[in-house]
């Protein structure tokens, strides 16, 4: 069986500065894969390249066996790859409902869209209660829920979440992580970028540790969680 997503020797540069220096990993259908590492490791750059916002200078990205390198960002989502960006990036002057509907921008099945909006409200009841409210008025955690709900609206085969716990209170962070676990249990394939390595590895089937543009360590979530060097570097233990 071939992987849903295969990344091979991917290299991305901002001008002359290489931010991602030849990384390889794959994501199988039904798996949760996490990229962890400190700021500037190239995790966000990797996700932005996968969704087409950045163009790689080298390497291959294959989604369901098809190369994504020449496909513009606005077409990649229709292939089944949804990206909930770092910093949430909800549309602040639109209502919650309008934000969700934009997630389904390329879909034509009105009945299916309505059903999925309801599904997002079931997943995050607070969004349903405030559906007519401008999204910019939501708290950070609620905005994160909206960004995730919006990404799910395209019915993705692969959901990419960039730093979903960033800047959230511990309680909100737990809530978001519990939702990711719920999505995993429903069979959603997820590529998760996190600085909260503990929570991400606990959820993940596979994990990759990135450092300044390279993958330095890979393994199952459990193995990495118990790896001595990972514990020291990322889980704050001496």
């Amino acid at each position, binding site marked *: 069986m071939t992987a849903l997503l295969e990344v091979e020797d991917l290299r991305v540069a901002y001008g002359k500065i290489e931010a991602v220096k030849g990384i390889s990993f794959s994501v199988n259908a039904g798996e949760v894969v996490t990229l962890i590492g400190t700021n500037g490791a190239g995790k966000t750059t990797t996700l932005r390249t996968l969704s087409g*916002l950045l163009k790689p200078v080298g390497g291959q990205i294959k989604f369901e066996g098809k190369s994504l390198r020449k496909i513009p960002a606005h077409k990649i989502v229709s292939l089944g790859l949804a990206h909930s960006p770092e910093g949430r990036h909800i*549309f602040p002057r639109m209502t919650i409902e309008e934000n969700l509907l*934009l997630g389904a921008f390329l879909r034509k099945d009105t009945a299916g869209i309505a059903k999925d909006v309801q599904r997002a409200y079931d997943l995050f009841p607070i969004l349903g209660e405030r559906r007519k409210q401008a999204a*910019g008025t939501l708290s950070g955690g609620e905005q994160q829920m909206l960004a995730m709900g919006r990404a799910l609206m395209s019915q993705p085969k692969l959901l990419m979440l960039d730093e979903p716990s960033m800047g959230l209170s511990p309680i909100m962070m737990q809530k978001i992580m519990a939702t990711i676990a719920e999505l995993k249990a429903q069979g959603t394939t997820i590529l998760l970028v996190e600085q909260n390595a503990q929570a991400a590895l606990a959820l993940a089937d596979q994990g990759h540790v990135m450092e300044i543009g390279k993958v330095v360590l890979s393994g199952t979530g459990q193995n990495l969680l118990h790896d001595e060097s990972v514990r020291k570097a990322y889980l704050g233990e001496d």
Partner: protein
Amino acid sequence: MNELPQQLVNGLLLGSMYGLVAVGYTMVYGIVQLINFAHGEIFMTGGFGALTVWLILPGGTSMWVALPVMIIGAVIVATTIAVGAERFAYRPLRGGPRLAPLITAIGLSLALQYAVWVWYPEAKSARTFPQIPGGPIELGPITIQTGDVFLLIAAPICMAVLAFFVMRTRVGRGMQATAQDPDTAKLMGVNTDRIIVIAFALGAAMAAVGAVAYGLKYGVVDYKMGFLLGLKAFTAAVLGGIGNIYGAMIGGVVLGIAETMATAYVSHIPGMEQLGGQSWADVWAFVLLIVVLLARPQGLLGERVADRA
């Protein structure tokens, strides 16, 4: 004699012409943060497009038959030039320094003016624009000139259609998304390059209708008609809150009414006898802009830039 209702109507008519042009500035700014200084000239080419259609039509054609064709001609000429400018002048500079497209816009503005001056037959002075037959319409104390009837009907229709398009259609929602956050709009599947082209085209089409209204109102079109009118429309867009379509419409009307009122009444104020009349209208328009921007830098309906996520 109470001439206030008449002055209000005059201001409203002038203002709706400003508004038709202002929405083009505001839509393009809202999406690519470019002040398209060539927009006034795109308006002007719309006027010449309409005139050209009139000149091609056989002599003696009824204005009622000609006018719809002239509008179509104006819209085609203006949108073609606007879309061409976007494709060949602005798009190659996107992502570069912000000053580059701005200077390009100023250059394009001059180039369009002098292209018409040099190549359009007899355009070195103003050219007569055909008029709608019939006399002015009297409505109680208000008189509406025949040329203004078109503006009275066309402006609200255009504004309503544009508002519906932006607020209610799928492409319109994609346009709003692109204005608020272009990268994220792409992640939703919005083809932002196409949205930008649509914004330029829509703005040009509205300006073209405005140009036909200008020709009917003033009886002439000329190669520099886009300069001052473009500046006024840009002022209206800033006044209303640049980036906001309703703001541009309201800003246009407010500016038009203020200008008309100032022209009519300032000279009645003791000590200001010299400052009334048509020659001071433009001064009062910009005084209004300065006053509004001092009190509300974001414009009447604008949002503070810091609100952008």
